[in-house]
């Protein structure tokens, strides 16, 4: 996967976990939690989805780095490099 596709794919994973969230409405720089009440269950499901999709095992201690779309893309880019 190239770098340009990463944000779009991550966004698809977020909206699969939160099907009531419209992809177009997600603001990349603002925490998921502050935009649509992403909670600890959502974060766990997100970590599971990232493992499935990218093979990246996100330890709990790194959850804070998945807070927003921008942060998450940066984190994945680092882990996939």
């Amino acid at each position, binding site marked *: 996967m190239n770098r340009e596709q990463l944000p779009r794919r991550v966004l698809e994973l977020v909206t699969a976990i939160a*099907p*009531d969230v419209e992809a177009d409405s997600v603001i990349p720089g603002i925490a998921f939690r502050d935009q*649509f009440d992403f909670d*600890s269950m959502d974060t766990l*499901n997100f970590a599971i989805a990232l493992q499935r999709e990218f093979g990246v095992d996100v330890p*709990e201690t790194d959850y804070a780095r998945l807070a927003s779309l921008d942060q998450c893309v940066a984190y994945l880019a680092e882990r996939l490099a």
Partner: protein
Amino acid sequence: MQSEFRLPALGADMEAGTLVEWHVAPGDRCKRGDVVAVVETDKGAIDVEVFVDGIVRELLVPPGTRVPVGTVLALLDTEAPAPAPEMVQAPPRTRAGEDAGEAIQQRVKISPAARKRAQELHVDVVSLRGTGPEGAITVQDVERAGPSPQPSPASVGEGAAGMRAAIAAAMSRSKREIPHYYLTTTVDVSSAVDWLAAHNAAVPVTERLLLAALLLKAVALACRDHAGFSGFHRNGRYEESPVVHVGVAVALRGGGLVAPAIMDTATKPLAALMDEFRDVVARARAGRLRASELAAPTIILTSLGDSAVETVLPIIQPPQVAIVGAGAVAERPWIVAGRIVPRQALTLSLGADHRVTDGRLGAHFLARIAGLLAEPAKL
């Protein structure tokens, strides 16, 4: 023998629901527990199961019809000659052990707006081919398949406003009828927090647990040890439930709240309990709970652990008689052996029914939950 399949009440104040679709046709064989219909209620779209084995004789209510609770929806023949074995195969159902991701994959990919439109137009979304991202069904796909773009009166009264009205009605009834008492206690949950962190670091991501899973188990076990908190108060008397089904309050992102049960919570190992918890939250938010899950809770756990709230003073959902609340875990100064040390603290609360128990019994019950959390490895 003939059996009537009626629209069940899915909460103290549900009066009606709209039949959205049938999963069976006349002549189909169904088994106890099979989902045979989807009903749109103020708690979202609910999968309704049958409670007998039988063969569907007649469907009495067509999709799109709004009917009161108790309406006979279909007739079943319950004593029929045994069919060929391959006919008895129940359709695969979402079970514990699958994770939320798979549960989502099994459902039709459809936007909330399109699902709403499909209900209005009585379009069976299962038969549609989606043109949206990853084959998701869009509003346009639904409208193309629909008969004519006219809204149906059947959809009036459900959705977010309907759910809000139902919550208000249930809570008003609770405050009117139930003489509540409230207790709170702040406990050191450092051992549970540390145990969770160590556990979650050691297992694959799919096997990680949330603190809420430990709370669910602790509440269920405490109910087995202390009578008067897990059951129903009906017709002027309290009946303890022989099996503890802890309901978990799930906040919906559009606003609103549902509390489906984790069935037989006390006997489930934490891993299985967590799988079911994840599955039930995913389905609550996708609007696909089963009727039995909404009717079953004998007590509810409401956890506001993801917010900055310290204490929740929870209101009982009738006909239950108790509800346990949990605030957020936070590091607090704690006195251990005469010294101030930082510990992870959690405020547990109890709303309980004075018709059944008093504060002293409630205090024992809360203390038992705290004691169970102090030894997480035994949960």
